């Protein structure tokens, strides 16, 4: 140990600059600062791009959009990129590769990621002009150019054939159709996607494909391609002697691993193709790894990107000295053809001995679904979904676990997986933050005496991190208590035995208007962080008083407390309202000036407006004074209240818009602004069925049609996403507003604390039909009441922030310290990142070098 050698830079050479190579580099370079020497050698003369999204090329996704994040390749000094210069030879003895241009690159570690090439049929005429494969950007660009010139030459739309009816073939047929080519898919076997689908599923799929205007020809073996006088392909001949005209032909008959380099270098390859690797991604030469489609593992090479990515992670981890193994392939697939839903997963063909299947078919609707179950009909082994693959996302994670309910229920239309009475399997993860399973929660109820979500949180940590699983945990607890014959308490907390709904009615009927009066009459103690905000919300709806009026001020949760959103360091974010996402250039400039003057971090939110972060308590009134002067008002980003009405640009500008979606969004946002509710409310308005506003993920989604507005209810993003369901069709403006008024007020009156509309609707007795009856037929006789309540809200609305600024008593609450009203919190510290500030981490605080104290963020006015 006497002489110190400078560590040698490990030389890593990656051959092939495709998707898997890209993932490998990203993983390797982001995880280490070590001084590496990486050379990436690609055959295609461009950066790695999204091959999976290749078909997007015809929808206008150019090279730039398809290119995968080039930042490492372009800016990391440890990387050298040689595009357009394929490797011709590997010299394992010398540990070097030689490229086409003659460049010799030495390696300590060689990673082969050469992917596959697309095969063509070995029939005469396979390489005539007009014949293509479908693999690279070069291929699709060539196809597009050919179709354009050829149809100009012929003066008519082209007829095209795709040979091979697998996933890729169907995608290619869709692409031909997009190019205006009349497309037929030719499949040699008896059905489409024969590797993934059984015969009835393949047949159902063929019907769906034909309904989209693509012809399907099965059981047809192509034997010859013949040219016309110009030399371009003109016709196909099949084994049965029949012919078909074809101006363009695309082969999608499978891929072959590009293992030629490895073979000639003497590495072991599978006879069916692919460089043989072990679970560590090593080939039989310890200095050479292979990843992605070129690799063969367990006797298989698979043409999917996910296993390639998994291998990339394994290889990167191992090169960095870690341990990781590739666990084998998941062959689940979902077709990406718009308008056609197909998925296949697990043991789709029921090859497991004794496997049973459950099938649901609705030929009229083009739906075929099959689940494969173990011999006791309990464990999910696989499945096929055609025509409605909505259950794919929820079924796939259940593979290998007990379904816990009648399998048929999973297959019914709109069945989803939240089943009536169905229990999640014990193994299912309920809390993803702490990896707590349903079984663990049941144990907590049965063995550890937990009787509510709070108890389970204390024992298992489920719900202790992000909190999004609390409702799911509560449901399991309720169900288990029910099984034990115990009743589930709906008491709000230790201070009230009433549920929120009961409390709402109690307050409404008694006419009480203060917290103290309500708790003395209906509860006990002095409340807590559960019942106080709930009561604040109820009082806000029933009395319409300001959140910071008198005793109300003491009930408000974290954010309503000062009408801003608390951030991790105790500062706040400020979000002015921008109804419908509409904002004038002057408005944007004002916001920009304010953010700059107060040195706030700015970001566009997911709700189509601007958020400014890092405002200190004592700065909030100064910031809001400027915003209010410029005509802005509170955006209620902090309230359990209306958040945003998201809009698309709609008929005023968009060439497809049917109605004025922005106008309606603005109208709705102004109507419901400030409306307090059991949980937040979000709306979306789209100008046509293309749904650019994603309205169906909102509590109310409004979509314009030729006949008027369609109203969808009960959508949710967040932890348990749910699409809103159609409540009413073809409404006019006023009809729409009345329906939303009643829907909101009914929800506000009857929902549980922190229950959004989606779970509220799911639990509503009688479901949507009942809701329609309440809203449109006044089945409960409460419509006049609901309308009056909403009218009261609309009339009583005032901007909370403007009102606060006008009230010196309220303003005193924004002083930072009672004995130093304008002194900033001395504990705040920031660092600069991408041209803005963010709170310093603990480590950065300790190092102190880079800190910006909050007080030095000068306020310029």
């Amino acid at each position, binding site marked *: 140990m006497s002489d110190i050698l400078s560590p040698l830079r490990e030389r890593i050479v990656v051959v092939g600059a495709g998707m898997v190579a890209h993932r490998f580099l990203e993983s390797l370079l982001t995880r280490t600062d070590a001084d590496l020497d990486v050379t990436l050698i690609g055959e295609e003369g461009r950066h790695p791009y999204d091959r999976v999204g290749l078909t997007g090329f015809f929808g206008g996704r150019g090279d730039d959009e398809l290119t995968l994040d080039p930042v490492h390749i372009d800016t990391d000094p440890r990387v050298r990129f040689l595009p357009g210069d394929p490797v011709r030879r590997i010299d394992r003895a010398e540990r070097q590769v030689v490229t086409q241009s003659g460049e010799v690159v030495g390696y300590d570690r060689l990673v082969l990621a050469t992917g596959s090439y697309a095969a063509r049929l070995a029939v005469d005429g396979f390489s005539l002009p007009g014949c293509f494969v479908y693999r690279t950007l070069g291929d699709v660009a060539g196809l597009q150019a050919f179709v354009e010139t050829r149809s100009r030459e012929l003066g008519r739309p082209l007829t095209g054939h795709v040979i091979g009816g697998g996933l890729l073939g169907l995608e290619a047929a869709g692409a031909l159709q997009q190019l205006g080519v009349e497309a037929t898919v030719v499949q040699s076997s008896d059905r489409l996607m024969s590797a993934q689908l059984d015969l009835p599923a393949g047949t159902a799929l063929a019907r769906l494909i034909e309904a989209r205007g693509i012809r399907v020809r099965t059981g047809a073996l192509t034997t010859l391609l013949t040219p016309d006088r110009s030399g371009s392909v003109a016709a196909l001949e099949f084994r049965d002697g029949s012919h078909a005209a074809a101006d363009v032909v695309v082969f999608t008959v499978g891929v072959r691993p590009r293992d030629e380099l490895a073979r000639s270098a003497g590495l072991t390859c599978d006879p069916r193709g692919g460089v043989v690797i072990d679970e560590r991604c090593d080939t039989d030469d310890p200095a050479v790894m292979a990843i992605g489609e070129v690799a063969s593992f367990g006797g298989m090479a698979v043409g999917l990107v996910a296993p390639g990515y998994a291998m990339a992670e394994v290889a990167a981890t191992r090169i960095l000295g870690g341990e990781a193994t590739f666990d084998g392939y998941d062959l689940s697939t979902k077709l990406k053809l718009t308008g056609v839903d197909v998925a296949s997963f697990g043991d789709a063909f029921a090859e497991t001995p004794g496997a049973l299947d459950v099938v649901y078919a609705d030929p009229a609707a083009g739906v075929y679904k099959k689940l494969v179950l173990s011999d006791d009909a309990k464990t999910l082994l696989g499945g096929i979904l055609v025509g409605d693959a909505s259950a794919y996302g929820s079924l796939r994670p259940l593979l290998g676990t007990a379904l816990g309910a009648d399998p048929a229920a999973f297959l019914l239309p709109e069945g989803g997986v939240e089943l009536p009475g169905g229990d999640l399997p014990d193994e299912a993860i309920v809390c993803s933050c702490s990896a707590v399973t349903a079984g663990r929660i049941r144990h907590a109820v049965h063995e550890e005496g937990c009787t509510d979500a709070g108890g389970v*949180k*204390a024992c*298992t*940590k489920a*719900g*202790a991190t992000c909190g999004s699983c609390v409702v799911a945990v509560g449901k399991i607890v309720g169900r288990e208590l029910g099984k034990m014959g115990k009743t589930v308490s709906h008491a709000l907390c*230790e*201070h009230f035995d009433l549920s929120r709904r009961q409390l709402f009615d109690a307050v409404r009927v008694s006419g009480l208007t203060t917290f103290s009066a309500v708790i003395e009459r209906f509860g006990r*103690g*002095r*409340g*807590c*962080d559960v019942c*106080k*905000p709930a009561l604040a919300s109820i009082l806000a709806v029933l009395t319409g008083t300001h959140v910071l009026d008198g*005793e109300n*001020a*003491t*009930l*408000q*949760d*974290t954010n309503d*407390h*000062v009408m801003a959103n*608390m951030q*991790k*360091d*105790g500062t706040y974010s400020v979000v002015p309202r921008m109804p419908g996402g509409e904002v004038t250039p002057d408005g944007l400039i004002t916001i920009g000036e304010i953010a700059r003057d107060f040195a706030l971090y700015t970001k566009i939110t997911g709700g189509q407006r601007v958020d400014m972060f890092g405002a200190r*308590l004592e700065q909030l009134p100064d910031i809001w004074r400027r915003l209010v002067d410029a005509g802005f008002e509170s955006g209620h980003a902090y309230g359990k209240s209306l958040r945003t009405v998201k809009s698309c640009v709609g008929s005023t500008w968009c060439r497809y818009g049917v109605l004025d979606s922005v106008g309606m969004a603005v109208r709705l946002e102004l109507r419901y602004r400030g409306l307090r509710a059991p949980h937040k409310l979000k709306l979306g308005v789209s100008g046509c069925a293309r749904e650019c506003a994603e309205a169906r993920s909102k509590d109310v989604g409004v979509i314009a049609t030729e006949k008027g507005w369609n109203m969808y209810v009960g959508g949710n993003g967040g932890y348990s996403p749910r699409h809103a369901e159609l409540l009413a069709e073809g409404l006019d403006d006023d009809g729409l507003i009345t329906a939303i008024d009643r829907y909101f007020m009914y929800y506000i009156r009857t929902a549980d604390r922190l229950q959004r509309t989606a779970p509220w609707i799911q639990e509503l007795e009688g479901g949507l039909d009942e809701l329609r009856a309440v809203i449109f037929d006044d089945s409960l006789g409460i419509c006049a009441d609901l309308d009056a309540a909403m009218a009261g809200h609309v009339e009583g609305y005032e901007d909370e922030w403007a009102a606060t600024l006008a009230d010196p008593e309220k303003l005193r*609450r924004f*002083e*930072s*310290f*009672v*004995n*130093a009203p304008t*002194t900033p*919190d*001395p*504990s705040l510290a920031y660092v600069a990142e991408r041209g803005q500030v963010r709170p310093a981490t*603990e480590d950065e605080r300790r190092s102190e070098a880079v800190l910006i104290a909050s007080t030095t963020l000068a306020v310029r006015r």
Partner: protein
Amino acid sequence: MSAVTATRTWVRICAIGDLEVERGRAALHGDVQVALFLLRDGTVHAVSNRDPYSSAQVISRGIVGTKGDAPTVASPMYKQVFDLRTGSCLEAHGKDPRPLQVWPVARRGDDIYLRWEE
């Protein structure tokens, strides 16, 4: 008795009229931030303003309430609940309980004093 005697002093922090029932206020002494709470019965409690779970100085902005007989404050950050009298953590929401520091409070006339050890 320890060999080193800390100096104990009473420090005037504010007037009672500066506080509102069940709505906390922060106070600053040197670099130390204190959260003050005036309860309905007229008592004043002083605990550390620093939330031990997030390290942010926010306890004064939490909701005041009760748990059994104990007067409490819930941190506005992650909602851990503390006993205002002792600072002990009564509801840790699945975390290890961590207490808040407390200061003795005295009221003389309209003035609120904290006992400070330096």
